[in-house]
């Protein structure tokens, strides 16, 4: 007799969103997570609920991202109701600022490609420096323009993690943390979870971030994810000057300015590199010269979880029914869709949307065999 209906392995934003979604639909869920220090994208990310530019080469990913952004307001309200945690969601639309003409041209071309793939339904705008300054007067003279997408926004990712945990607990979910799951063994229609003590679960969801690469094959699933480092700087509070989140910089309610984000292929190294930090600072002060005298109070590096094409992997095992795998590189953006839609699919309901199978990890096996 399994001790839990669902074992969710990994308690980051992805695992907690799915766990909460399952628990709120009446399933009985136990989350297994590691201790105080672990590789955790969920604790080191930039907090954007971002649509603009996502899904090049996979239009379904653009659709999925937009669905999540659209579900976000009701999702944030639900979390607030259940936990009293305000995740500070705002969706005023977002900007991607460019420093050269060619940067802007590339970006516009990318967004036009997406618009074509989505049959013209992709309402981005191109802002010349004049229009941009009308929206953001502090943009520096070096800025050559920007693109704007009305569905973009941001939230506080740490409050989101806390709210998900709180809501999951409030629905009766259980957390077992402090132990790494070392193995998962399919046994007679159930799964044995090897941690501090062995557990038995009827079904298992792998949401262990980078850990999925190792755990997936144990239940016949493929998640060739790799780390990609991003560094983020947090600056002291300044007068409000930026009412829109941008890809590189956002100002949060308290006035703090967050600056990111590099993309570096450095393996499992989540420290900060002064060289990269200096480059981030150079770009930021060119975009917004008023930041020159603003002090950096904190910086960190964190590892993104990247699949070979950068798109999510959602899969269920045919070899071992009851085993699922979930991973993505935009866990804040997709949190609403994960909790409200994906969890229903994992729980065995009819898929509310037709294209979830597109995200199967089998696409990587096929391409490598070809």
């Amino acid at each position, binding site marked *: 007799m399994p001790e839990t209906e669902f074992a969710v392995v990994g308690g980051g934003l992805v695992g907690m969103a799915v766990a909460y979604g399952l628990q709120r639909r009446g399933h009985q869920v136990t989350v297994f997570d590691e201790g*105080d220090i672990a590789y955790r994208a969920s604790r080191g990310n930039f907090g954007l609920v971002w649509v603009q530019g996502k899904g090049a080469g996979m239009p379904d990913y653009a659709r999925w991202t937009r669905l999540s952004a659209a579900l976000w307001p009701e999702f944030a309200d639900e979390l607030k109701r259940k936990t009293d945690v305000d995740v500070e969601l705002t969706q005023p639309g977002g900007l991607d600022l460019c420093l050269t003409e060619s940067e802007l041209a590339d970006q516009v071309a990318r967004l036009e490609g997406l618009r074509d793939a989505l049959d013209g339904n992709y309402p981005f705008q191109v802002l010349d420096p004049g229009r941009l300054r009308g929206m953001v007067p502090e943009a520096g003279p070096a800025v050559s323009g920007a693109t704007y997408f009305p569905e973009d926004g941001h939230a506080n990712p740490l409050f989101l*993690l806390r709210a998900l945990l709180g809501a999951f607990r409030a629905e009766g979910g259980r957390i077992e*943390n402090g132990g790494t799951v070392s193995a998962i063994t399919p046994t007679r229609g159930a799964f044995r979870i090897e941690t501090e003590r062995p557990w038995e679960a009827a079904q298992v969801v792998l949401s262990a971030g980078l850990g999925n690469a190792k755990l997936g094959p144990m239940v016949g699933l493929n998640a060739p994810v790799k780390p990609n480092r991003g560094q983020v700087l947090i600056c002291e509070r300044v007068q409000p000057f930026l009412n829109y989140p941008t890809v590189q910089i956002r100002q949060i309610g308290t006035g703090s300015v967050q600056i990111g984000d590099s993309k570096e292929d450095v393996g499992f190294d989540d420290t900060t590199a002064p060289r990269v930090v200096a480059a981030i600072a150079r770009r930021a002060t060119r975009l917004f010269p008023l*930041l*020159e005298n603003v002090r*950096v109070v904190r910086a960190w590096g964190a590892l993104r979880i990247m699949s070979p094409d950068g798109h999510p992997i959602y899969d269920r095992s045919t070899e071992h029914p009851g085993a699922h795998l979930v991973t993505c590189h935009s866990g804040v953006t997709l949190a609403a869709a994960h909790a409200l839609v994906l969890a229903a699919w994992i729980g065995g309901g009819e898929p509310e949307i037709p294209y979830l199978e597109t995200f199967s990890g089998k696409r990587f096996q096929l391409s490598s065999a070809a």
Partner: protein
Amino acid sequence: MVDPVPLLIMGSGPAGLAAAQEAVRAGVGALLLDEQPTGGGQIYRALGEATGERQKTLGTDYAAGAPLLTVLSAQCLDHQPGATVWEVSPDGTVYYTRQGQARAVSAEQVILCSGAMERPMPFPGWTLPGVMTCGAAQILLKGAGVFPASGAVLAGSGPLLLLLAKQLIGARARLAAVVDTTPADNYRGALKYLPGALRTPGYLLKGLSMIRTLSASGVPWYRGASGLEAIGDDAVAGLRFKVRGRQHEVACSNLFLHQGVVPNVQLSRSLGLEHHWDGLQRCWRPILDGWGASALERIAVAGDAGGIMGARAAEAHGRLAALGALNRIGVLSETERDRRAAGARAVYRREILPRPFLDRLYRPHPDYLQPADDTIVCRCEEVTAGQIRKYVELGCLGPNQTKAFGRSGMGPCQGRVCGLTVSEIIAQARGVPLEQVGYYRIRPPIKPVTLGELATLEQPEDA
């Protein structure tokens, strides 16, 4: 691009100055960085500028630093005061800001002598304006000769509390009271360490002299106080406390708090060095060998930054660390290193003998290691002890998780102030030893640096 230097010493307290002396003696051009405008560290702060009158107030231990300070004028030493170090990389590159300009220097050997900091003493009202640490009050006294003429209360425990009382009395300040929180059973607990301490009796004699000054001064001196509460609306107006069940209240316009010092481990932590929990001193210290060398080939730690040892031991420890480093860069043979180290090693051994006695005697009162629920522990983000306990209930196992949940440790001080308290609270709430709870993961910059400074940073690799 700046050329690599053979030896970089960070901190010009007794440890750093002694290290610099050994480098000068070996003919090695060392770079000495300190964020303060003058050398001397905590104990000999501003000694070079202090008038005879101020020196007299501050006592003979203060004036005793003069010979060490002479190294600052040595030809081959590059002394850069006013240099704030905000990052040290494991490869020996040191990043700092001086005169508004960020710089990076590579060194073959780096000795971190960042000293100690005061252990915070959280209780209701401790964040009111007018409340500061005894160390901060002493800094004003040493640096500017400024002190409150009347109406100050000193509260807490430890040698620095008594020393400051003595120094203020000597400066003719009229103290409103000294409120000592040393628990009565600490005296009993410390007794077994007394024989060791008596082998280096200087400290005890100094302590007795401080006690005599305080007794003779007529300043109300409450001992065994507990349940402290600072009161006041916009600023501190008084201190409430209990002594043997009886409630007291003393009016004051300044409240100076102290409950011992702990190593400043921000840099050694940010380097990812392993630290172990010192149960007697109730603090973390980096793991070092007998030469202050860490597990990183190019990084050593000396003085109070490696474990609270006091000024004279810190000086000897700085010498040992420098001799070790000079040997590692090939300037001194092992034999020569050991020969030069013999004296310092003997001083070090002798000077640390009284530590266990002092550490046990002045172990903080449990009230201020485990503050009540409504007490703020993280001042920057105003997080209370109760909130930390709530996050533990939600499933947080350590300070990095409670930090992510409630922002404790995310402010400009980088968790320096709340780090120990938060770990203590989590350990007790979980019912596990503190070692299992761990500490904040400290990330550079460990001191604020502007984006403009970062943007113009000259990198050693840029050449």
